[in-house]
């Protein structure tokens, strides 16, 4: 069993991260129903093992960029859920002071270069962060998370090329949930993602994104390659997207049977619990479940109680210094 390769501490860490993401996202869905969350959110539920399996190899000094579906990456990278929840509620105590919202949560102290509302927008930025690491000789790496839809943006193609030609210490993690918004990936993508990477000379693997241990293993290899000067890699991760594209999407383009099967057969948390056999660990997991419930409750209460940003925030921080 692969679980023997991860220490108890690391197993609990992995579980805590994935479960936090799951509970957080499901709670967001509920809160959206109250009408108190402005705008839209794009929920990561179902994809947890991808973010966590990768981010377990990273420190605060490594970088990640994310997508519009960014809550999972934020949490996996260590962003504080109280700040995140407040940001999603648009409050002054949010990670970005309520100025960015769900699609622009960032925490540079944690190396989180931001969720991004532009598909594939983060890929070039990640090249830049990787360039900084390379030029300053820190051995840090940068991860560009992106979806299957992003693979067809010019920005992605350019970034793959640039990353390879400059041998940047980065990994492209392509989270393929089968859909770019409401359109199936098969309908819009020619060739294969790994084939495309190979075209650039970039080592690429495909992996089942519902298996934390497989993601962890494959990610570890790619990240080590990057740290050791071996240049970029691409990981094509297959994940299920539990909700619609956005939280208000009725998701009618998938059949009820598909969606039910997805939850039953492709739940990374269920699989994790099953893989972790020993009883004491199961107890520890349950304890973690309770902690997370409480933490998310508190995050929501705190977010609801917090004030909206002051009007002065409308025009502050456009520049460091304008005049």
């Amino acid at each position, binding site marked *: 069993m692969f679980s023997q390769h991860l220490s108890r501490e690391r197993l609990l860490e992995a579980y805590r991260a994935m479960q936090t993401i799951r509970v957080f996202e499901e709670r967001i869905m509920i809160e959206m129903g109250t009408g108190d969350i402005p705008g839209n959110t794009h929920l990561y539920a179902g994809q947890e093992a991808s973010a966590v399996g990768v981010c377990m190899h990273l420190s605060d000094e490594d970088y990640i960029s994310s997508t519009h579906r960014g809550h999972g990456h934020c949490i996996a990278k260590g962003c504080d859920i109280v700040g995140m929840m407040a940001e999603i509620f648009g409050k002054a105590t*949010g990670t*970005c002071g309520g100025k960015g919202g769900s699609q*622009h949560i960032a*925490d540079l102290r944690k190396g989180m270069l931001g969720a991004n*509302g532009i598909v594939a927008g983060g890929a070039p930025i990640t090249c*830049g*962060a990787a360039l*900084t690491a390379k030029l300053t000789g820190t051995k840090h790496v940068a991860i560009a998370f992106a979806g299957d839809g992003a693979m067809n943006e010019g920005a992605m193609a350019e970034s793959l090329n640039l990353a390879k030609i400059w041998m940047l210490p980065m990994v492209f993690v392509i989270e393929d949930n089968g859909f770019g918004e409401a359109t199936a990936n098969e309908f819009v993508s020619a060739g294969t993602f790994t084939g495309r990477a190979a075209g650039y000379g970039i080592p690429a693997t495909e992996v089942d994104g519902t298996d934390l241990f497989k993601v962890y293993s494959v990610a570890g290899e790619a990240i080590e390659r990057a740290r050791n000067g071996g240049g970029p890699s691409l990981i094509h991760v297959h994940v299920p997207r539990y909700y619609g594209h956005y939280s208000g999407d009725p998701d009618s383009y998938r059949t009820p049977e598909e969606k039910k099967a997805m939850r039953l057969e492709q739940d990374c948390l269920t699989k994790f619990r099953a893989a972790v056999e020993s009883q004491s660990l199961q107890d520890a997991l349950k304890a973690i479940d309770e902690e997370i419930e409480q933490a998310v409750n508190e995050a929501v209460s705190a977010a609801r109680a917090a004030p909206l940003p002051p009007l002065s925030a409308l025009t502050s921080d456009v520049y460091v210094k304008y005049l």
Partner: protein
Amino acid sequence: MAKISYRQALNDALHLEMARDPKVIMMGEDLTGGAGANGVKDAWGGPFGVTRGLLGAFGPERVRDTPISETAFVGAAAGAALTGMRPIAELMFVDFAGVCLDQIVNQIAKFRYMFGGHARTPLVIRATFGAGTRSAAQHTQAFYPVFTHFPGLKVVIPSNPYDAKGLLLQAIRDDDPVIFLEHKMLYDMVGEVPDGAYTVPFGEARVVRDGNDVLLIAFGRMVQVAEEAARKLASEGVSACVIDPRTTSPLDEDTLLEFTEEIGRVVIIDEANPRCGMAADISALLADKCFHALKAPIKMVTAPHSPVPYAPNLEDAYVPNADAVIKAVKSII
């Protein structure tokens, strides 16, 4: 002090600042020229010779010739800036901004604001602009009205060698994203430039020439056009004041308002197309804040509402010239 060209002044600034601050890096197409080839290295020193010698002085890690991938390398500049470097990315022609506009306007311009003030993006995007070289529609635009429009960007347009060096040093040291626009026709312009380092602040207009009868506001190469018009007007007894705002964002509103109050007649000369351009922008400001001081309508002398043509006579007719300025002045005196 020495008499050097605008091109040399920019080159001096780049050398000085790259020597002073190891965080400054450069990326762009053919910044050196000859990369990966068998002949001479630094063969071009940039498409207009501005970056000559930097490869030799600072090496290929810090002076990078890129693939033709504006989105990737401008975005990489963004990511490097967010993570502590001070990159200078070059767009060979500002017209190519269309290819990477998302990185400029949706990412770079907005990081600091979206991230609640917790990010800094201290980068410079240098680009050439402007008409006169018969490079036609896709290599000749002004674009600064577009950049000026976006909050989060600063836009700088030096009109002479002294300002070119000082404004570029300021741009590199500035903690905000700066779009630095160099007029192609000014690269050979010669002027007195101090040898050492100095910065020219943003949002500070320069009074190029004193005068009381009419105020001419001009940018980039149009400053020379305004000066030529002012000289000709002087021989006819009309005294024209010429002001160069130098930066459109931030804009030195105080100086423009102060001189409009005193003089009351204004002509704005702008090489960009007229709709939503700087001439319109400044007209609105002056009409709003100086209405009672105005003795005549504000006149705008701009390019027409058309792309830049290729044929030499047509391109020459496209660009505002001294006669057009004089005509506008006479219509309000």
